[in-house]
């Protein structure tokens, strides 16, 4: 670590980072395996990426927000050409005639944990230790940056073939979500999106801080627990302050498509301490609400994470299936996601649960 608190991302960080990011994906966000390999290839070819704490950089430094947009399952088949996010980021720079000082992730959960690392490696830029969600959410507008006033435009989207589309003026992030979503589908449901730069003083105020470090810490705890044959679920809780809310076996999984999203519900019959109880999880790409015996016990924006009971492997909603034994843990979301402004965008009402009032989780004890 250097004077400004920055540190270089090294190859050994990538696997734990991807494990932690998968976990923070709360069931969605796509699997970061491909992104992990892409970052590793770049580092092996000599690229370097430094991770900067939020306190680094002057107030007027410009920070770029990049991420992949598309369907996670497409991401494992039509792997990126490689420069998608990079080209989108350069297009935003050219439109404004500016240069980015660093990149930040829109969402640390899932595959988008890696996209800024890749674009930064190609551009020779650092990445910021933080993100706009502290987890994964399904839509572009669901970031702390937008909630606290970031501009949506100019934004740019780039594909594998060299197409780059700039959204010069977009009224707000909801419109950007609509335009970018449709464009990404035309581009083959896998594209890179870059959003208007933000000043560093704004990012300092609005980013969920330290989430790259948090994902790494979680991933290292999982690796260490596996190596020592410890209970992975317990170690994850101890490392993060998450709480175990339910253990059980999936007895029903229903999925349907509404508005281009995977919505559904999983039923879980209790095991162990929850023998005789029934759990239920609502899903929109990510896990939204956990009910136990009819009572809502965790809800968005707090994190609901399904882990394989034996291996501690995060189970994404796409591979959730009958018979799996899961541990459901809850992790409090960052306070920036709990304000009235945030509730309007990512609270239970925003996800179509008018009957639910957000009841925030408390942190459990954290130990190394």
């Amino acid at each position, binding site marked *: 670590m250097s004077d400004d608190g920055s540190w270089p991302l090294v190859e050994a960080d990538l696997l734990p980072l991807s494990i932690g990011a998968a976990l923070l994906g709360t069931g969605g966000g796509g699997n970061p395996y491909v992104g992990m390999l*892409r970052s590793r290839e770049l580092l092996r070819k000599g690229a370097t990426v430094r991770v900067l704490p939020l306190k680094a950089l002057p107030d007027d430094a410009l920070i770029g927000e990049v991420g992949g947009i598309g*369907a996670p399952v497409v991401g494992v*088949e*039509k792997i990126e*050409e490689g420069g998608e996010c990079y080209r989108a980021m350069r297009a935003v720079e050219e439109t404004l005639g500016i240069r980015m000082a660093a990149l930040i992730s829109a969402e640390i959960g899932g595959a988008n944990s890696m996209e800024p690392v890749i674009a930064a490696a190609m551009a020779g830029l650092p990445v910021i230790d933080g993100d706009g969600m502290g987890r994964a959410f399904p839509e572009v507008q669901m970031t702390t940056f937008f909630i606290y006033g970031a501009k949506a435009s100019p934004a740019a989207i780039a594909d*594998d073939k060299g197409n780059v589309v700039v959204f010069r003026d977009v009224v707000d992030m909801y419109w950007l979500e609509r335009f970018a979503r449709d464009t990404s589908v035309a581009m083959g*449901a896998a594209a890179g999106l870059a959003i208007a730069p933000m000043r560093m003083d704004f990012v300092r105020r609005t980013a969920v801080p330290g989430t790259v470090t948090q994902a790494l810490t979680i991933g290292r705890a999982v690796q260490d627990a596996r190596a020592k044959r410890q209970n992975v679920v317990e170690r994850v809780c101890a490392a993060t302050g998450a709480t175990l809310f339910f253990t059980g076996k999936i007895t029903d999984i229903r999925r349907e498509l509404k508005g281009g999203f995977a919505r559904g519900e999983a039923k879980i019959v209790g095991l162990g301490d929850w023998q005789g109880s029934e759990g239920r999880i609502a899903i929109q790409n990510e896990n939204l609400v956990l009910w136990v015996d009819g009572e809502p016990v965790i809800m968005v924006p707090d994190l609901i994470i399904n882990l394989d009971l034996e291996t501690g492997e995060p189970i994404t909603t796409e591979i959730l*299936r009958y*018979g799996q034994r899961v541990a459901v843990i809850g992790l409090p979301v960052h306070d920036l996601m709990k304000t009235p402004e945030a509730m309007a965008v990512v609270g239970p009402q925003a996800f179509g649960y008018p009957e639910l009032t957000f009841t925030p989780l408390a942190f459990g004890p954290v130990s190394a």
Partner: protein
Amino acid sequence: MIRIGIDVGGTNTDAVLMDGKTVMAGVKAPTSADVMTGVVQALRDVLAAAKTTADKVDVVMIGTTHFTNAVVQRRDLAPVAAVRLCLPATASLPPMVDWPEDLRDVLGNHWYLAHGGNEFDGRVISRLDEAELLGIAADIRAKGIKSIAITSVFSPVSSEFEKQAGEIMAKALPDTHITLSADIGRIGLLERENAAIMNACLRDLSRHVVEAFRGALADVGFTGRFYLTQNDGTLMDAAFAERFPVLTFASGPTNSMRGAAFLSGVADAIVVDIGGTTSDVGSLQKGFPRQATVAVEVGGVRTNFRMPDVFSIGLGGGSLVVDGPDGVTVGPRSVGYRIVTEALLFGGSTLTTSDIIVADGGADLGDRARVAHLDKALIRRARDRIAFMLEDCVERARISAEPLPVIVVGGGSILVEGPIAGLELILPNHFAVANAVGAAIAQVSGEVDRVYALAEMTRDAALDDAKRQAIDAAVAAGARRDTVEIVDVEDVPLAYLPGNATRVRVKAVGELHVG
């Protein structure tokens, strides 16, 4: 119908002869270095034990670990040219990018990215470029590579480009083997490509092995059809197996679990297959092994095969028993196939689990006098340790609090003293050759995995279409149409995509058509 099931393991080659649903005879022969001598021996023995001749046998099914072991041990593998139809997409990750270096080196690390490939909805990423492919073919010829794996992006949605590229390559390089990824794997480019490349590197070996199996069968006078078993407990005929050896991976544990289900008549259970060195533990659901949910590695290479969710512990009939200051340890080291010379009860000098069991009167094996001197307290502690290990692995395999029975099979079953973890214990007849029985009763399957746009058709219509394709695939693979049933249906909406794109996966299974 008379059938013979053979399981070629690392230590033993087992064979059973079945008349309909009755096991007439089961035998074990040592696996030979050339494999085939052991197969001939097992065939002769099982025919003699059943008092019949090869001409009475309708069909032979063979399960083999030969190809898995070749990859794991990096031997007998051919150099491969991996051709990916994709550009400009996927250029960020070349073929074999996440392979163990030693395996990649054995195959030569030859890869080519070319134009082609499809989008998720079937649109073209870029057109196939014949001149480009001919240039690649010239390079392959210059390098003297004889096996090619072709992988096109989204080939499970549209396999046209792989077929066209395959034809171009076959014309330019008539004496090469060509593997198309769509014939092997499902969506997930790297995993499917990995499987295609591993298949390609086994093509020389598969020709020899299948030819040798054919020779062994001819040697005992069998002239009918024979099959190899796949990782999901179903069959492929010899010609198909020769083209797709990679599909035999993990067929061993599948066969022992299916055999256990058949011999015990129990469809839902935990199965413990105790061999000479390891015990494989898995669970049966409706007579089939529960499938793994996460990517399974073979020889360090990530794949997305249908594989049973099985784990192994280092406990078997040849496991070393060591009495140390911290108590008794059992395994993971084992004398393996050398048990017949190294274990105490066979005149050797190594204390094994089998010695403990025989000394305790739990089995009649070797020369009991040679283990009569063993300390009673040590025997008790060793047996307790073995029981603890079995209980621990059974608990890990339990997927519910339901009191499922535990079926114990395999040659090392003598290690089991009584109920494990308080669950009902089933030790079926012919338990020692359960994997050969599993091979003998294997079924035929067909599978479809593709993306439908539900904006253009109803979900029911899409599922019906997929089921029809799966049934046709099963029949094409040799199943009797009247016995084919759908065993697995899964539809996963593709998140974020309008047009209600949904991935549908259907598997159909039926009895083999014989005659």
